[in-house]
């Protein structure tokens, strides 16, 4: 399962994407993914907000993650 990273999320992790492999504990929901990120990188807990997109649309915390989904971490947006 590949996770895309943008903006400050990319800086926190140090790369523009990373993978959970089959022998990792692959997160099964948006909230589980957020908790895993905050556990591994405490900087995520300090952001103003943290959203996840699944297949290029905002996802709810309760949404399930499936292998093959395009998953992205959306730190606070600041367009305009």
């Amino acid at each position, binding site marked *: 399962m590949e996770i*895309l990273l*943008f*903006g*400050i999320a990319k*800086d926190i992790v140090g790369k523009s994407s990373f993978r959970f492999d089959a022998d990792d504990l692959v997160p099964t929901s948006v909230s589980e993914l957020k908790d895993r990120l905050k556990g591994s990188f405490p900087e995520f807990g*300090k*952001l*103003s907000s943290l959203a996840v*997109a699944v297949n*290029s*649309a*905002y996802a709810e915390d309760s949404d399930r993650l499936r292998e093959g989904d395009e998953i*992205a971490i*959306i*730190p*606070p*947006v*600041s*367009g*305009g």
Partner: protein
Amino acid sequence: MKGNMSIEIVDVIDTSTVFAELSHPHSGGICVFLGAVREFTDNEEVLSLEFETYKIMALKEMKKIAVEASEKWKLNKVIIRHAVGAKNVEEPVVIVGASSAHREACFIACRYLIDTLKERVPIWKKEIFKNKSVWVSAHP
């Protein structure tokens, strides 16, 4: 309406064509907002801004916003266009606009387009100062 929307992410915004693009025989009013790079943030001199985007999602969100605006108000044309990459002071960053029969609808729609874009569209802005750079709005 969908044929009358122009939703784009571009390297450079060309402001010279936007009124012609929004023109429509049934539109008596066209309202356009342009966001540009300001020289100072909280009294600190900004050298440049850098924009990055999650493009496929940003385009989808921009389109949703244009559709929402067209459902809320009777609009004949809508433009939402955002730039990415490095931008210097006074360079355009975003342009949004709407045209409608009367001015009320295009003003309120234009404001909705930019306010909602800033809330939802996955675009990130880094301010480059002399001695540091900051992802805008990242921290409380």
